């Protein structure tokens, strides 16, 4: 499974060491994880953009293996490290929606042609659509009949369909384009459609699809259209001859530069065997079946693989390190580099001498232009640095806006032997590109620019759509997307209005009155006083009787103060952990069978704990293969076919609509835009509520589909609590996490907003910022520019479900583990702060338990809830402090803090390593 695509990755750990130690084998599969392009993330999908500590592990091994191999010397210096990194880049930046991931691709030029001609010695005419670019081209086409109004497609009659065609719903055909035999060396892909002259077909509509990349090629966002104009020639002398009654002609009106591609300067070349005078003679034209040939330029983006190789040699005489950096990137490449003195990877400028063409950059780094290689693409640079340095850091700069780094981090080359054996958390492999970020960018400006950009896009969209009014579904989508944008703007306005100090005294009174009255329970917040327990970890499936094991702990969990428990996904699953569900109605899993599940839910209800079911709605594994051998046909009670699968993941050949979110590539993603899918899922969720007794949902991978659908599900199932996992990467600049993570939390807020606030979301932002703050002793990060908490909890506390670890980030997976030993500081933060805190199973049942219990009891004693007020009283390098609801003060960090001694008297409530909590008395 996961090893298949190793070859394509071009990732090699080149060590000039003939012995291939068994250890080094471990290197390969791990390094594969680094490329976001690969598709084999099975359960590990979530960490695409996060640092994966596993790599560090690998680095250590590889490096130490290298260390043992230092026997060999090269040119009087010993090479003790060499590494090649793949680089992905393109010539143009393709901005993916809201994702800010820029991919570098190369443009391959070619052409699409459309030809209409007569098959020799027959009445049959043939339309040929071809393309001379390599790819898995598919002609996606349909016809319009005479008298059709609107631009809907119809399926062509069966006799028109070339062999191998697959019907798509009821309106189109997909015909794979075959490599043309006729066109000689230059490989043409073409599809031929036979046209019967006396059919009632008015036009043929098509778009091209490259199944390899999933890209669609349209004309200006619309379909290509080849009208076959039919008009009866009453005055024709030979009108009684059936075959000549109709004429074909080609309208190339819809042609033009292909807008989904890069616009090319050249005019399209159109050639017709009949000269132009011909078209002026109506009689001749209408009688003769006109041959036609039209070509359109096309460009396809292909990702280019480049690499950079770094080798390190130690000079035996001077004990200096010589680094040799070589890359096959074309053009001018500037290396932005520095060294670090310790494990903190803080950029420092090394001592001179520097290579030629080096300039210093802001006292932090050096910039050196790499020397072009003799004869051939690429360039190189050689650097000499003193001994005693911990490592060499660099990023590559192609131009002002294009930087290449290593999976969101700097490339890091360990230099000292100690650093090689030290546990480094840096990933060494994989290269992706990030856009350069100006950290001092005027925030306000960029936001307004952003929103006006959106408006512009919407206007375009509206314009585009309304000219295709008859495509009702499309305009409905457009309306939905406009509504989404409106919601986004509203959310922005809301967050600002809300964050400003209330000037309305009356409102404050009303608020206070509200709180006295019984708290309104809504699915986004529960009672507001919820404390969640994640009741499993990544290994929980192993015993086969987890339900029974956790059931034993129910009373204990209740006494600690938890009000909600999140149980693992209950369905039959391809993976034992449950996140690859197949038959949704089969609730016999590795955690136990359906009866045990009911039993454990009942038990938790008895002790007063609500139970969340882990609902995996984004994807579902198939039972059967389709005719192409692709797994996308379902069995079980929900025996969907490929219409339930999104269309834009080529691996599963779904026939649904395009995904409304990000794709999870290990399994077919469900197309929630389909009415029947939503109906079935709602039914299933309601069944789970009734049959099992779940009180609410933890929704897996909600990045995969639009939050509006979540609202639909929640409205249908009326859970008492719901939380979604919207996990994407925080923003980093030069490998350092940005202080301002507003964009990140905004994405989560946007999702919550799309659900209409019916679900909360895990506050990934807060976790990330806690990582940086605790790991690097940068506690100032815990206050945003407005003096509010910097995570989701600062903007929409009632919907923020705070956590520090879960089965993916921690447990035995450890995709993004909380800084070791500092977990209690994290809990001191989330358990005293607003938002709804979640405690991870592994932490409860560890030596942290007494501390967690103490913090929970402080929270409950002081009635801190998800909307509690918070005032940050200190946010400095080594200490952060805040006062919550004017009742509880907390400080975390090694620095000193005492709550203000004013009218309020504070008494210490609990104290642990680097944190302390006070209560007002």
């Amino acid at each position, binding site marked *: 499974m996961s090893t298949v695509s190793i070859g394509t990755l071009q990732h090699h750990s080149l060590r000039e060491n003939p012995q291939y130690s068994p250890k080094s084998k471990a290197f390969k599969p791990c390094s594969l994880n680094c490329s976001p392009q690969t598709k084999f993330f099975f359960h590990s999908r979530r960490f695409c953009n996060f640092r994966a500590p596993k790599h560090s592990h690998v680095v250590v091994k590889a490096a130490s293996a290298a260390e043992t191999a230092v026997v060999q010397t090269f040119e009087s210096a010993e090479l003790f490290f060499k590494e090649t990194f793949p680089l992905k880049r393109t010539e143009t930046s393709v901005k993916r929606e809201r994702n800010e991931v820029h991919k570098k691709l190369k443009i391959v030029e070619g052409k699409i042609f459309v030809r209409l001609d007569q098959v020799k010695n027959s009445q049959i005419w043939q339309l040929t659509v071809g393309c001379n670019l390599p790819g898995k081209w598919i002609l996606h086409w349909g016809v319009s009949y005479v008298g059709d*109004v*609107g631009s809907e497609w119809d399926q062509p009659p069966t006799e028109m369909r070339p062999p191998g065609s697959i019907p798509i719903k009821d309106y189109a055909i997909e015909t794979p384009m075959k490599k043309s035999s006729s066109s000689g060396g230059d490989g043409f892909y073409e599809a031929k459609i036979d046209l019967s002259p006396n059919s009632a077909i008015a036009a043929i509509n098509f778009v091209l699809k490259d199944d390899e990349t999933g890209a669609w090629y349209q004309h*200006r966002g619309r379909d290509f*259209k080849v*009208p076959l*104009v039919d*008009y009866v020639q009453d005055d024709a002398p030979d009108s009684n001859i059936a075959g000549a009654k109709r004429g074909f*002609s080609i*309208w*190339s*009106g*819809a*042609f*033009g530069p292909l807008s989904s591609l890069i616009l090319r300067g050249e005019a*399209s070349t*159109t*050639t*017709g065997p009949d000269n*132009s005078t011909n*078209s*002026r003679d*109506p009689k001749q*034209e209408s009688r003769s079946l006109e041959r036609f040939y039209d070509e359109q330029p096309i460009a396809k983006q292909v990702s280019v693989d480049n690499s950079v190789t770094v080798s390190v040699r130690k000079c035996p005489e001077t004990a200096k390190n010589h680094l040799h950096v070589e890359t096959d990137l074309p053009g001018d490449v500037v290396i932005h580099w520095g060294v670090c003195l310790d494990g903190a990877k803080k950029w420092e400028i090394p001592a001179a001498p520097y290579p030629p063409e080096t300039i210093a950059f802001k006292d932090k780094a050096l910039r050196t232009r790499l020397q072009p290689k003799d004869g051939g693409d690429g360039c190189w640079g050689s650097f000499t640095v003193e001994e005693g340095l911990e490592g060499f850091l660099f990023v590559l700069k192609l131009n002002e806006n294009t930087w290449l780094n290593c999976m969101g981090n700097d490339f890091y080359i360990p230099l000292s032997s100690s650093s090689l054996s030290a546990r480094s958390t840096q990933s060494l492999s994989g290269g992706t590109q990030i856009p350069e970020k100006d950290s001092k960018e005027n925030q*306000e400006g960029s*936001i*307004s620019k952003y*929103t*006006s950009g959106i*408006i512009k896009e919407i*206007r375009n969209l*509206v*314009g585009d759509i*309304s*000219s*295709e*009014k008859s495509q009702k579904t499309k305009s409905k989508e457009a*309306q939905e997307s*406009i*509504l989404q944008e*409106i*919601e986004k*703007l*509203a*959310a*922005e*306005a*809301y*967050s*600002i*209005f*809300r964050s*400003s100090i209330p*000037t309305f*005294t*009356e409102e404050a009174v*009303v608020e206070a009155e509200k709180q006295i009255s019984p708290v309104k329970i809504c699915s*986004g917040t529960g009672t507001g006083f919820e404390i969640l327990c994640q009741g499993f970890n990544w290994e929980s499936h192993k015993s086969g009787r987890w339900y029974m094991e956790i059931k034993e702990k129910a009373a204990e969990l209740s006494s600690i103060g938890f009000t909600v428990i999140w149980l693992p996904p209950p369905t039959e699953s391809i993976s034992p952990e449950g996140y690859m569900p197949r038959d949704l109605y089969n609730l016999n899993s590795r955690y136990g069978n359906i009866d045990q599940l009911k039993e454990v839910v009942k038990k938790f209800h008895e002790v007063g704990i609500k139970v969340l079911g882990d609902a995996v709605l984004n994807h579902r594994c198939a039972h059967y293969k389709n005719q192409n051998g692709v797994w996308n046909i379902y069995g079980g009670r929900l025996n969907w076919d490929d219409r339930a699968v999104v269309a834009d993941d080529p691996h599963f050949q779904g026939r649904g609509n395009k995904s409304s979110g990000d794709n999870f590539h290990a399994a077919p993603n469900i197309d929630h835009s389909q009415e029947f899918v939503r109906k079935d899922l709602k039914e299933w969720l309601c069944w789970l509520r009734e049959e099992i007794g779940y009180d609410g949902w933890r929704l897996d991978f909600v990045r995969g589909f639009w939050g509006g659908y979540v609202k639909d599900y929640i409205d249908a199932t009326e859970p008492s609590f719901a939380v979604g996992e919207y996990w994407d990467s925080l923003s980093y600049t030069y490998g350092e996490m940005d202080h301002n993570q507003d964009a990140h939390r905004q994405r989560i807020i946007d999702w*919550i*907003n799309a659900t209409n*606030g019916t679900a909360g979301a895990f506050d990934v932002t807060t976790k990330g910022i806690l990582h940086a703050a605790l790991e690097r002793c940068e506690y100032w990060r815990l206050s945003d520019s407005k003096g509010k908490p910097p995570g989701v909890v600062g903007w929409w506390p009632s919907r923020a479900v705070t956590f520090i670890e879960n089965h993916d980030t921690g447990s035995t997976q450890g995709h993004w583990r909380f800084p070791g030993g500092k977990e209690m500081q994290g809990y001191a933060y989330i358990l005293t702060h607003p938002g709804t805190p979640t405690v991870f199973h592994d932490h409860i049942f560890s030596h942290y338990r007494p501390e967690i219990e103490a913090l929970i009891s402080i929270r409950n004693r002081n009635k801190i809830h998800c909307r509690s007020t918070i005032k940050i009283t200190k946010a400095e390098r080594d200490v952060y402090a805040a006062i919550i609801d004017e009742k509880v003060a907390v400080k975390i960090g090694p620095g000193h803090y005492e709550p203000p001694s004013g009218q309020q008297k504070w008494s210490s409530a609990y104290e642990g390593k680097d944190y302390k909590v006070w209560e007002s008395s």
Partner: protein
Amino acid sequence: MEVSVIGSSQVKTELAYRELGFCNLKGGKAVISSKNRVCVGRSTGWRKSGIRFTLRATAAIQSEQLRSDSVSGRSTRSKSRDNVRLFVGLPLDTISDCNAVNHARAIAAGLKALKLLGVEGVELPVWWGIVEKEAMGKYEWSGYLALAEMVQNAGLKLHVSLCFHASKQHKLSLPEWVSRIGESEPSIFFTDRAGRQYKECLSLAVDDLPVLDGKTPVQVYREFCESFKSSFSSFMGSTITGISMGLGPDGELRYPSHQRLVKSNKITGPGEFQCYDKNMLSILKHHAEATGNPLWGLGGPHDASTYNESPNSNNFFRDHGGSWESPYADFFLSWYSNQLISHGERLLSLASSTFSETAITVYGKVPLMHSWYKTRSHPSELTAGYYNTTTRDGYEAVTEMFASNSCKLMLPGMDLSDEHQPHESLSSPELLLAQIRTACRKHGVEVSGQNSSATGAPGGFEQIKKNLVGDNVVDLFSYQRMGAYFFSPEHFPSFTKFVRSLNQSELHSDDLPEEKEEAADSLRVSSDSVVCMQEA
């Protein structure tokens, strides 16, 4: 040559279609689709052979083009007939004390959202206490000008409410210099029987008295309006389409019969008469003497209930046998309400004459004093200055005054429904609304609407809709009011739904011109490709 011929002929046909599309609007969709075919047939007819198939192509495009035209036509039509011009109130504190735009970013985002939603414009409260804060005649418009520009840039209309009142609740005060005068001369404020002053607006009794450093309040208001007009001249008629003239407490034409704020969940008492400031009393005295009953001019009714007493607890408002039906009461109530109407007349004529040469409509706001409407005496209306009882229509005179000044009448409370009123208050917002609207219809005064509840009355949107559709013609509806609650997930989605249900046609009809551009664009492309064919 050949090329240009074809190009221009296409343009012509296109224009012809557009004309067709517009003159045929009545038929709606069905007609349009059939017309489609007609057009195709025609174009072939016109173009006799020659470049026949080229034209075919054009026709194909235009049939699409037509459809978008037809949609725009439809929405225009429906707009004039049953679409309400919807405005959303901006926060009361949009412009801060020191003339800065508060939460500019939020407002910018909010304006964009509203524009996308298809809202016509926003309502902006302009506070006397902010603009003319420091000294008489010293106007500071910069904050409001900045905001007007934001609104203009967002492509929205602006309805300005000139607020000559203050709002303690929202920490908005009268101009400092006015407050200073009020400290030494408290009689410029409305006063109740117990001598308590209502300091959020000037008493109507001083309208024509030179109490403000030698000028009368009416003069000061007029100069304020003149200054506003000249400062915003570039926005007048284009961005600014309407002005609500502040007429009293909360901008409404009434006495502050409830001096202090009433908690929303409590039942409102009938309020008290506010005729006890020095000047009111002296007017009353003169009036009483002139009508030959000098003893009636010594004060208001002695047996009226106090603020939050039940109307039946005292003699005056009692349903049966209450003294409100006595000749004295008729004398007093007529005088009391006429004072209010004269005040309204003074300010509205001031406003309509000031803005007469601009393309701006002047509005005045009439309160919806709906509590106790189901009693015979309507005490809440009486204390507020509306002599409206089961036996007398008090709104005729008011609407007549509006009609004579060609002003439109703004009515709040369109979100209030009878069923959600506390039963004991004997309130009926719906009946009162209907009564005022009848009076307006009678005198040809156009009605505009507002909602009253800041935090969303139960069933408010349904009620508003009820008040906007059918026979209830409303000139515009001003929804109150943008802010945190407005954009909150509890509220905004239902507002969105409400707006969409009002304008059932398109989400954003103002984008239609751009649509046309886009369509024209595609036409251009098509002619280009035709060119290619001809060359070939």
